[in-house]
């Protein structure tokens, strides 16, 4: 069983996890240009989304940003 805790909720994956953070965002249909990602308390910069590997049990916060100010 593979699982990621995303924004406080467990998300189970049948076989394998998405390989990278970029793959996870793609699967969730989240626009990488407007989301801030934190894995186990560590902010991941935009340029590293594609190279950040995921492993089971990680706590991921995805903070979606919308415009206006």
């Amino acid at each position: 069983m593979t699982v990621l805790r995303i924004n406080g909720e467990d998300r189970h994956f049948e076989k394998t996890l998405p390989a990278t953070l970029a793959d996870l965002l793609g699967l969730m249909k989240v626009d990488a240009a407007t989301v801030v990602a934190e894995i186990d308390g560590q902010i991941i910069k935009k340029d590293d989304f594609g190279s950040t590997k995921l492993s089971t049990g990680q706590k991921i916060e995805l903070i979606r940003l919308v415009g206006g100010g």
Partner: protein
Amino acid sequence: MLIERHGKTVYEKLNAATVGIAGLGGLGSNVAVALVRAGIGKLVIADFDVVEPSNLNRQNYFPEQLGEDKVKATTENLKKINPYVEIEGVSTKLNPENAARIFKNCSIVAECFDKATEKKMLLETILTETKKTIVVAASGLAGFGKSNEIKTKKISARLIMVGDGENGIEKGLSLMACRVIIAAGHQANVIVELIVKGNL
């Protein structure tokens, strides 16, 4: 006067604080006013823009300031509120190379940009390039009504989010003073709380 109002300890904490404001639009110009009135001792304010007619529906500027640099106009307005507040103005576009340096003396930075991609850039930059600075960001404040859907939420030790997280300009919603000022008030209020209590 503020010592009498807040008590000496609270006054001294607020007066000793340095807070950064990234962007001086609807959020930033109003966050700045609230923080100066609350008694924050020093602000570092940054924006590259000038005051335009389309700003006046929600931003804290006046018709006679049209065309003026926003940093200069905000400094003038804040000094009218409190001539003793210290303002460090930076008239430049913030980017991943300069943001951490510009806000290096700030314990807290308020993210007050308009575009979602710029918000992301500032959060990533400050949270990775500085060790302790807390960011109070805003997302989801467009439109009107739904006052109580604007929340202050602690994401992690160094990131606080304000807003409803959903209603952005991407949905075609316009920005109005009332809801923008609610969000700006949340940002300023949590900043004061962080300074006085030391954490959330």
